């Protein structure tokens, strides 16, 4: 929407109203993390700023467009709106974006089938002219998270939007994540030049290897190559699909002695948040005993050359395939990430290779479910896959069920299973949010459009025969067996049968090298139960306020043992009066000033007229008396 007045500050104050469902609160905070990773928009709990967004559980999912300067600007995330891309969509409205197909040039790219639209809903397909809406010099975006799907407001089964390029028919309406063009527009609109949480990435396509340096304190160097005889045949970024490109870094352990090391250091990085997640792909063509160590070289006043600290030892690296790894860092000073390859005992025909490194100040997923030779399961009867067992940070054992044998859609479900800590845990399992992410393996984390769904264990949830869904699996679960034959109990699964369509699953980089990664995080979100109490109208600080009602969201306070109402105010408006019952605004001041000026002018005019009249009358009288004197009748002339 055109107009500076609709912009928000780069850091948007927000309130998560307690009416929100617990799962929705967690999802909204995850959506904020996507904004922080890919844009310069940040969010902060409301601390009394004039304008803020209040996210509440209203009816449906909706928002206003742009900053409306109304103080508390509502944004509704109601039932079934607790999907991360829905939250991203509604916040893009709040930031000033309309739907993609309402652009002024929309008809160059899609045809609206008016006769297939529900009667009375045609207005939803209006367009804005380029005086109202600015496309920010970005091409039409079929992949926008703000685009209607082809079935929007259909009155039957035929699509209401037909793309002029047929290949985009099933692309429009994606609700996975920001598209590249979404980010380009948003970052242009808000003049973003960096993001809060993205730090670095490297796919080694450029010869400067992203400024990484070989360390001097080792016995070998990492080589920038595009192929290794012992493997890998090609890089991970492009899977060898681009002739003349596709590089990665390789430590040739076969050419050094056992125990020899090769250190590769990143450029110097400057953290802002104090926690980081390092992701990269690793290929082992050497020996099972070869090892990759991750160090941090942290610089401080007392350590000019930096202190090298071992963060993680990666051992037993599977041979012969690219593997995704995550390493959690908690660095607060400027630092380098150091990759240390170590030649292990035993014969080596190759070595260690790394590609597609990403570093961001985000939380790493807790677990990775790596599914190999994936395509064989799509739509097949044996496409019912259960993940290995994992343990959440609180100790709950769980498993993911991926159902690929449906004809059009993929289902994904979270199951609690019987585990070693069950006797010490709380049952039914309270408020653990499970986030399941199908990873888009784009080398650049900012360009990934991963598909994500979250569910939360509501301890009060029951199924029809009164069983608590999240009760102890050994009590409510069914008997199941691990692949090694051990028996366990699997609880009731909660998830969705329409996680992603088969078509979308086979798009982008969800499947790369026939590998799929499901990232899993199970977090305790009970602290969100009452996150932030909004300074509610009439909130009492002392009993004195108990029966004082301040109007228009005023806040009752006690000052010198006397109750007062503190009235809300905005940039050009304010409430006043004892109970904030009166509203004022700069516009009123202007009106008052103008009217008083007019009044003074009128008064002066009247005074002038009266004085002129009197003067005239007096003069007239004088002249008439004088002529009387001069005419003594017939005065004789000389």
């Amino acid at each position, binding site marked *: 929407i055109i107009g500076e007045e609709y912009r928000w500050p780069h850091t948007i104050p927000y309130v998560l109203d307690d009416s929100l469902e617990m799962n929705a609160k967690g999802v909204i905070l995850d959506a904020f993390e996507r904004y922080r990773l890919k844009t310069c928009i940040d969010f902060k709990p409301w601390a009394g700023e004039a304008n803020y967004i209040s996210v509440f559980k209203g*009816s*449906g*999912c*909706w*928002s*206003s*467009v742009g900053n*409306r300067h*109304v103080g508390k600007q*509502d944004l509704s995330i*109601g*039932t*079934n*709106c607790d999907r991360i891309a*829905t939250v991203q*969509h*509604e916040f893009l*409205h709040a930031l000033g974006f*309309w*739907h993609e197909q*309402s652009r002024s040039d929309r008809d160059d790219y899609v045809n609206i089938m008016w006769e297939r639209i529900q009667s*009375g*809903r045609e*207005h*939803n397909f*209006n367009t804005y002219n380029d005086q109202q809406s600015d496309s920010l010099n970005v091409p039409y975006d079929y992949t926008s998270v703000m685009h*209607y*799907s082809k*079935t*929007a*407001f259909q009155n039957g089964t035929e699509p209401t939007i037909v793309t002029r390029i047929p290949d985009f028919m099933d692309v429009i*309406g994606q*609700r996975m994540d920001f598209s590249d063009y979404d980010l380009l527009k948003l970052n242009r609109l808000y003049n973003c030049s960096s993001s809060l949480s993205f730090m670095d990435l490297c796919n080694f396509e450029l010869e400067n290897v992203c400024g990484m340096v070989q360390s001097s304190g080792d016995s070998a160097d990492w080589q920038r190559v595009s192929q290794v005889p012992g493997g890998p045949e090609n890089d991970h970024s492009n899977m060898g699909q681009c002739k003349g490109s596709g590089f990665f870094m390789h430590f040739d352990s076969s050419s050094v002695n056992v125990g020899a090391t090769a250190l590769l250091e990143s450029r110097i990085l400057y953290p802002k948040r104090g926690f980081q997640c390092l992701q990269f792909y690793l290929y082992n063509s050497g020996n099972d005993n070869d090892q990759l160590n991750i160090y941090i070289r942290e610089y401080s006043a007392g350590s000019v050359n930096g202190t090298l600290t071992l963060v993680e030892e990666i051992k037993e690296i599977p041979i012969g395939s690219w593997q995704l790894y995550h390493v959690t860092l908690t660095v607060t000073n400027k630092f380098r990430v150091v990759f240390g390859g170590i030649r292990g005992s035993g014969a080596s025909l190759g070595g260690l290779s790394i590609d597609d490194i990403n570093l961001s100040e985000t939380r790493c997923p807790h677990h990775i479910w790596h599914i190999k030779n994936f395509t064989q399961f799509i739509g097949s009867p044996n496409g019912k896959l259960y993940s290995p067992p994992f343990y959440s940070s609180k100790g709950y054992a769980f498993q993911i*069920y991926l159902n690929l044998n449906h004809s059009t*859609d993929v*289902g994904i*479900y979270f199951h609690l299973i019987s585990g070693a800590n069950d006797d010490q845990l709380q049952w039914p399992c309270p408020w653990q949010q499970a986030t399941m992410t199908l990873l888009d393996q784009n080398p650049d984390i900012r360009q990934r459009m991963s598909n994500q769904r979250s*569910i939360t264990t509501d301890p009060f949830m029951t*199924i*029809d*025969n009164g*069983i608590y*869904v999240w009760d102890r699996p050994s009590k*409510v*679960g*069914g008997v199941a067996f691990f692949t090694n034959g051990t028996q366990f109990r*699997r609880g*009731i*699964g*909660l*998830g*969705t*049968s*329409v996680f992603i*369509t088969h078509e979308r699953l086979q798009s982008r980089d969800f499947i790369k090298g026939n590998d799929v990664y499901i990232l899993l995080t199970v977090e305790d979100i009970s602290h969100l139960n009452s996150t932030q109490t909004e300074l509610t109208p009439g909130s009492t600080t002392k009993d004195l306020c108990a029966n004082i009602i301040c109007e228009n969201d005023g806040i009752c306070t006690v000052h010198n043992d006397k109750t007062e109402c503190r009235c809300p105010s905005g940039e050009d408006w304010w409430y006043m009066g004892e109970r904030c019952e009166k509203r004022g605004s700069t516009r009123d001041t202007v009106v008052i000033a103008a009217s008083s000026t007019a009044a003074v002018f009128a008064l002066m005019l009247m005074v002038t007229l009266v004085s002129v009249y009197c003067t005239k009358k007096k003069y007239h009288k004088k002249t008439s008396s004088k002529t009387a004197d001069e005419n003594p009748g017939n005065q004789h002339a000389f």
Partner: protein
Amino acid sequence: LPTPENFVRDVDGGINQDIFDINEDLGLDLFEGDIRLDGAEQRNS
């Protein structure tokens, strides 16, 4: 013990509802399906 078909619960009920479907089902007639207009905009639209 729950019967097998109760073993999973589908939060979407088998239907991939978009934002606008959710709002339509609730009987909302918001501008462009999910945009709330303020007074002046409402009149304008």
